[in-house]
């Protein structure tokens, strides 16, 4: 096989995987239609969209690059505080806040990536956890800046694009969050189906072999870690802007742990896993909590145990079967 032929083949394969499948289009149409279908639950939908973006961020590093993290809340919190502080002291424009949140979290990701890339999975778990804990304590200690345990009060957001005010029903909030999620999803989709994305998967599956074939492992991992951090920062910024409030809770350990659960439910390594997991997790939580405000944690715990023991295969199996069918369809079209 000569080089040009191989290159064409690779290009074709990448192209095929990049093609939109009808199911994906339906998924996003439904997401936007939810605005009209569930006008009573827009606040919950907004939370789902934000959690989905946060999960998407973890999927980028865990599912595609194989970096485990128990401290992803560090970036969520960084984004939330950056956006909140910007809105409070500089400008109330939502997009400026979003960029500030992404920038701050991305910078943090870039700075901490050399630490994270050192060592194996266990080391990474400890380091990411440590970084998040340090940030939590910093936010708690600098209470003049962050409001400490009382939270960052008095954030007032300007209307989105100068037109749409954040209303009490969460209409603007949901459409804003969903649009940002969609946009960032498009970018993530492009990234993972690019040669860069392929090289990440090569590193995940076999770092030695990837390095031997000339992939600069550390630089690639640092790049995707920074990108994921910026995504988590965007989720944090959305959270701060749509609730117009930031509390220490955004940096808490349970945020990182919940996020792992979301990815376990939805499945890692295909971008929709985080989104599906976020929908399932939030709906379940909301449903059980409205039945029993006092004991909902017990039921959700029981459900998760059962799910991980057996049920997980059901969702993943269904998704895999569907994906296989899509792939076949895609191939058929390509020929």
């Amino acid at each position, binding site marked *: 096989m000569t080089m040009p032929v191989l290159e064409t083949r690779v290009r074709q394969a990448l192209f095929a995987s990049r093609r939109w499948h009808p199911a994906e289009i339906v998924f996003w149409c439904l997401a936007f239609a939810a605005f009209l279908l569930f006008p009573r639950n827009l606040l919950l939908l907004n939370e789902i969209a934000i959690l989905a973006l946060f999960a998407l961020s973890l999927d980028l590093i865990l599912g595609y690059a194989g970096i485990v993290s128990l401290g992803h809340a560090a970036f969520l919190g960084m984004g939330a505080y950056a956006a909140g502080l910007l809105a409070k002291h500089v400008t109330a424009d939502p997009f400026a806040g979003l960029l500030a949140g992404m920038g701050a979290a991305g910078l943090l990701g870039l700075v901490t990536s050399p630490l994270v890339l050192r060592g194996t999975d266990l080391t990474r778990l400890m380091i990411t956890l440590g970084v998040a804990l340090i940030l939590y304590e910093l936010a*708690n200690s600098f209470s003049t800046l962050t409001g400490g*345990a*009382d939270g960052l009060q008095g954030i007032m957001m300007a209307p989105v694009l100068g037109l749409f005010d954040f209303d*009490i029903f969460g209409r603007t909030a949901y459409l804003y969050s969903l649009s940002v999620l969609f946009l960032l999803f498009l970018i993530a989709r492009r990234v993972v189906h690019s040669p860069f994305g392929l090289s990440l998967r090569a590193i995940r599956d076999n770092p030695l072999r990837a390095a031997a074939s000339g992939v600069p492992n550390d630089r690639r991992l640092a790049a995707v870690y920074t990108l994921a951090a910026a995504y988590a920062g965007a989720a944090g910024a959305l959270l701060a802007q749509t609730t*117009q*409030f930031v*509390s220490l809770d955004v940096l808490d350990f349970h945020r990182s742990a919940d996020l792992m659960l979301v990815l376990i439910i939805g499945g890692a390594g295909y971008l929709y896993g985080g989104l599906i997991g976020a929908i399932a997790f939030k709906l379940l939580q909301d449903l059980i909590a409205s039945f029993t*405000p006092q004991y909902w944690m017990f039921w959700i715990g029981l459900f998760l145990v059962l799910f991980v023991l057996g049920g997980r295969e059901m969702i993943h199996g269904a998704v895999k079967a569907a994906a296989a069918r899509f792939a076949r369809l895609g191939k058929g079209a390509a020929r």
Partner: protein
Amino acid sequence: MTVRRTLLGGMLGLALAASTSGFALAQEAVKIGLILPMTGPFASTGKQIDAAVKLFLAREGATHGGRKLEVILKDDAGNADATRRLAQELVVNDKVSVLAGFGLTPLAMATAQIATQAKVPEIVMAAATASITEASPYIVRTSFTLPQASEPMAHWAAKNGVKKVFTVVTDYGPGIDAETSFANTFKEAGGTVESVRIPLRNPDFAPFLQRVSEAKPDALFVFVPSGVGAQFMKQFIERGLDKAGVKLIGTGDVVDDDILEGMGDVALGAITTHHYSAAHDSPANKAFVEAFQKANPGMRPNFMAVGGYDGMKLIAKALDATKGDASGDKLIAAMKGASWESVRGPVKIDPDTRDIIQNIYVRKTQKLGSELHNVEFETIKDVKDPVKARK
């Protein structure tokens, strides 16, 4: 045909008459969204208030001002983002007329904007930072404020020969309130004060108490949130501070009635100032405590329960006054200046600040029969929140 048409017309007319006469309106329930930490580290607060709200409906009836009260309980796990979303959902979806509960200061603060935007009264039944009522003109409080309870403690300590005090408070709104108001008042009275703050989550008191024992003060002033007192007491004794002659003083939060019995004798002799003790000597309180314990075996009502009970009382009184009109502005107007005889003593809602005016009692923890209680021995009448009173 004509007969049927007339019949139909008549029925339609009747239906219309019934719906416009206000008969249907009067029957419609007034919904109260009760948001409490029912899980997580502050669940004890939620359980006390929830029990008290149920007790109120059982004892004083659910119909007030001609309208039935319907309580919708939600759990925020002590998490401010959740409180805010739940409040928003309760207002938008369930169309509640009143928001109530709020176990911690950040939770009450996070909801203030919603109360203002939706013009819905926010009844703070627990959170106790002085500035909360300033966050929205729709906030009314039935618990207490930390300065309200701390300043009398400073006066008492200065009068009773205490010269040097070390304060230990939890590092968040109410704790900082307690520290500053105690320290300022005590310094004015000629004493000296040293202070440390401990983190809100997962507190370990040992290193802080070590500093206290090195400083050798006459007294240790303490504030910790409801439910954390037992842990503090244990470490206070373990460090031998009681034997070193350090008097334990504070607001009543540390010797919380809910967990006092579980602390055992270590709490004996603590001097605290607060607005409620389950041992408060009045027939109304005796009946309240008895009814509470009958409905909730093994639980003793604490100041959180009383805040919840009086919160419901205030809503009921306001509805009586507006004759069932549950619009936010009317309710708030009716709540301003409302006064009644609570189980803690006479209380009044300050019409200027929407904060509560009440007696503060100086109490000593001692044994009544076999049970530990905070026994009141001095009363300071009609205390306003001193922070806002000075403005």
